């Protein structure tokens, strides 16, 4: 505290004062106080450093573990489309060709694999079945789809790029090594030797994987084929619903509260309500959605429409709060001038105040949307997780009503699966999600800088 209160205990020092006490030399007490000052300051710097370091750790973790998902290992293979297997009657009748299941295509792939290994002169003790085991389980389906599309190619030899199975992919990315696969039934050390040889021969290579960005989720067995594209569409449709509902309702509510509402108990209740809704845990909105939209109104489970409605209720307070701030920032002189030349109050608001507040409203809306885009918890309760939507929706009604997932829900789904290959997918999905969020926030900041007027 102050020196005065401590005088009795400082008798020794007071005796010295006449002699020493120069301002230029620090006595022990000053040094102590200055040291305390430095310590306090260092705590502050340390706190900020810790915070920033956490951010750095988080970002580097995401980037270092997620970028792998954008690359995928492919095996290039010449497959002879044997007529004897695919079209026994030889009449190229599509109905007959369709009868051959994926099971019937497996020998072709095995044969192609064996021929390739023999042509390259690689010594391996593996059977052709184990060689084909390097390929994804997707390969036969891909082959069949190709043949059904181009039946005229039967009998010829076609070059295919097949996905390698996730262990091979992990081996090339350093996730899988000979030590980690000791108890792994999916791959053997001999197979990894073959992979090494094939990489040297240029048959196996790692390239950019567009299917991760535009593809659909795949089953537990095929992490290499999983993509986030379809759930991105689910998120997009939810955002459309949120935009279509939350923006008009939020703006209307803010205009009333800011411009017209009389000061009475009802508006007080509404205001307290909105500030409290902004702080209600998001999962409670999920419970509301489940009880009202699904259990009572019987809207379809897992539909982006329901997700959008729930997120609308969640985003409304955010949009209302920022819209009210934007309306408040428009100076009263604008309203007075409009009223002065004979506009009605409604005209003054809609013709003059609202256009001036539009950039602020837009910024708030984008930030609200970004918040809704990253929200997961309420989506779990309305069932937007735990199944695989295989096709991108084609029409608006389909997109709104047919079951789908959303980006964060898809990431959660991948994180829950046992195979570590899916973790890479989850981090990769987070990169995409964060790219969206960063873009939206940047647009919001630019809009604010570019159009915001200060009076």
């Amino acid at each position, binding site marked *: *505290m*102050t020196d005065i209160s401590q005088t009795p205990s400082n008798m020794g020092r007071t005796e010295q004062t006449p002699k020493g006490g120069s301002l230029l030399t620090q006595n022990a007490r000053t040094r102590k*106080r200055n040291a*305390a*000052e430095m310590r*306090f*300051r260092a*705590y*502050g710097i*340390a*706190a*900020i450093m810790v*915070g920033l370091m956490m*951010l750095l750790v*988080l970002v580097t973790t*995401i980037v270092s573990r997620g970028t792998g998902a954008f690359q995928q290992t492919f095996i290039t293979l010449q497959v002879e489309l044997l007529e004897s297997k695919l079209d026994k009657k030889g009449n190229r009748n599509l109905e007959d060709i369709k009868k051959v299941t994926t099971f019937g295509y497996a020998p072709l792939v095995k044969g192609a694999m064996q021929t390739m290994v023999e042509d390259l002169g690689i010594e391996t003790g593996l059977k052709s079945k184990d060689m084909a085991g390097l390929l994804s389980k997707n390969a036969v389906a891909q082959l069949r789809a190709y043949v059904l599309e181009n039946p005229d190619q039967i009998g010829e030899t076609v070059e295919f790029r097949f996905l390698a199975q996730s262990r091979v992919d992990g081996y090339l990315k350093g996730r899988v090594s000979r030590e980690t696969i000791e108890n792994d039934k999916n791959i053997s050390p001999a197979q990894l030797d073959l992979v090494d040889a094939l990489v040297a021969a240029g048959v196996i290579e790692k390239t950019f994987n567009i299917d991760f960005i535009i593809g659909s989720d795949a089953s537990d067995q095929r992490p290499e084929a999983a993509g986030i594209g379809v759930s991105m569409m689910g998120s997009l449709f939810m955002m459309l619903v949120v935009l279509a509902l939350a923006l*008009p309702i939020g703006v*209307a*509510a803010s205009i*009333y509260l800011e411009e*017209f*509402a009389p000061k009475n108990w009802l508006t007080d*209740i*509404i205001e307290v*309500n*909105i*500030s*409290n*809704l902004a*702080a*209600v*845990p*998001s*999962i*409670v*909105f999920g*419970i*509301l959605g489940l*009880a*009202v939209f699904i259990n009572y*109104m*019987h809207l379809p489970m897992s539909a982006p429409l329901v997700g959008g409605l729930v997120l609308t*209720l969640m985003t*409304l307070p955010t949009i*209302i709060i920022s819209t009210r701030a934007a309306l408040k920032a428009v100076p009263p002189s604008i309203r007075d001038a409009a009223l002065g030349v004979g506009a009605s109050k409604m005209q003054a608001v809609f013709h003059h105040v609202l256009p001036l507040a539009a950039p602020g409203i837009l910024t708030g809306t984008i930030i609200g949307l*970004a918040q809704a*885009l*990253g*929200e*997961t*918890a309420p989506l*779990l*309760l309305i069932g937007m997780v735990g199944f695989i939507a295989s096709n991108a929706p084609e029409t608006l*009604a389909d997109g709104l009503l047919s079951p789908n997932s959303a980006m964060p829900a898809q*990431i*959660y789904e991948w*994180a829950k699966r046992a195979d570590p290959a899916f973790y890479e997918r*989850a*981090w990769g999905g*987070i990169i995409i999600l964060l790219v969206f969020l960063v873009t939206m926030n940047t647009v919001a900041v630019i809009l604010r800088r570019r159009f915001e007027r200060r009076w």
Partner: protein
Amino acid sequence: MPTFWLVILLGVLAAAGYVLGRKRALASAGGDAKALHSLPGYYGYHVGLSVLIPALGLLVVWLLAQPMLIESRVSAMIPPEAVPESTSRSLVMSDVRRVSEGLDIAVDQGVLSNRDIRSMDIKETDLRTLLGDVGVALGAEVRPEVLDAARSYRTLSHRGQWAMVVSVLLVAIGGLGLSYRKSQKDFRARNVVERAIMALLITAASLAILTTVGIVLSMLFETRNFFGLHSWTDFFFGGTWAPNFRGDSDLSILPLLWGTLYISIIALIVAVPIGLFAAIYLSEYAGPAVRAFAKPLLEILAGIPTIVYGLFALLTVGPLLVRIFGQGENGILGVDWMSGATSVLTAGVVMGIMLIPFVSSLSDDIINAVPQAMRDGSLGLGATKSETIRQVVLPAALPGIVGAILLAASRAIGETMIVVMGAGAIAKFSLNPLESMTTITTRIVSQLTGDTDFASPETLVAFALGLTLFVLTLGLNVLALYIVRKYREQYD
């Protein structure tokens, strides 16, 4: 999707109404807009709104009320002896809805005709396989009462749908006709339109109240059902959480509450010192350049979705903690205290990171609100900067900071994804932060995901948990806002 087309049709009618109303008003003034009471557009808006508002209002009310009315009518048709001992009426009703849905699909695909359905005898037709073929899986054989109920459910729904389309269109056309006749030059169109818009604005503003009422009512209703099936003393005062989907579960909130509070406390222990010191440094020491750089960067942490933190907890922090505290000889400390990646500490630390910017930006605002004169006075008496902060600024800002911490605590209690992924699933009372424990929010998620049966206490308990969570966070928020507001008034 007749409702969709109905709405489109209403939009078209309203647009036509706008053109017609405007034209008629102008014609009544002989083409001279100055002779009109309002601007010509207002006459158009008047007709357009008269088409839309009553018709859309009726549509919404109808859509909300129809399922309820049909449900109660059909439910009353099922005789009590048709409800088997082990299930409840609502379960039978969900069967009824599924069968009727399946019949609809079958008719759409041309497998059945409406006449087939009317004359169908359940003893002769295997309805379950038939509906299975069109893609509607049923759990059990269809009983005759259920088929009867489904039939009338279907006819009632269809009739209701047509009645809805017809009455909504009638209301819309009626509105069009009436308002069209009124579109004369002396009609005060602007006043009427503005009153209607005002009503719309008020409706939008009351939606906030409606949401809260919806939250409270939906949870209260299901919670009442839950307490009808399960004793409330066990819920509030029991000691174990052991849901068992065959019935006879122990469902007590206390172990969950303990897990929630323990994780929140650890999160606050991480977040409060870091956040508070960061706020103090940013507001009292940092120059404008550091502030402009560090503050937005810290706030990025608040904008990152919680799923990212959840993944970070599960895949990075959890395994790291296991390397430190677990794995016996191979671990960093050489101890074996921790077995799995999910633990109270994992979730708490990550949640703490998430809360840092929350605490720091709130405290920053509050410290900035302390009047400069108080600092100047203290510095003038010879105190150092840190002494000023500790002995003058912080005591003055204390109520506000307490409010900020309470807000952060309410955030921590309601946080879901981090605990779902990082905390584990075992409900117990334990002081060991390296064990996995579970929270209220994780249990809500696990009880309500997957196939839920709204008649069993194991599902309904989620609503009671949700209500508790809502009350808890609401209480903390109201308290915090009250403290912050009171504090602000002190210096304004």
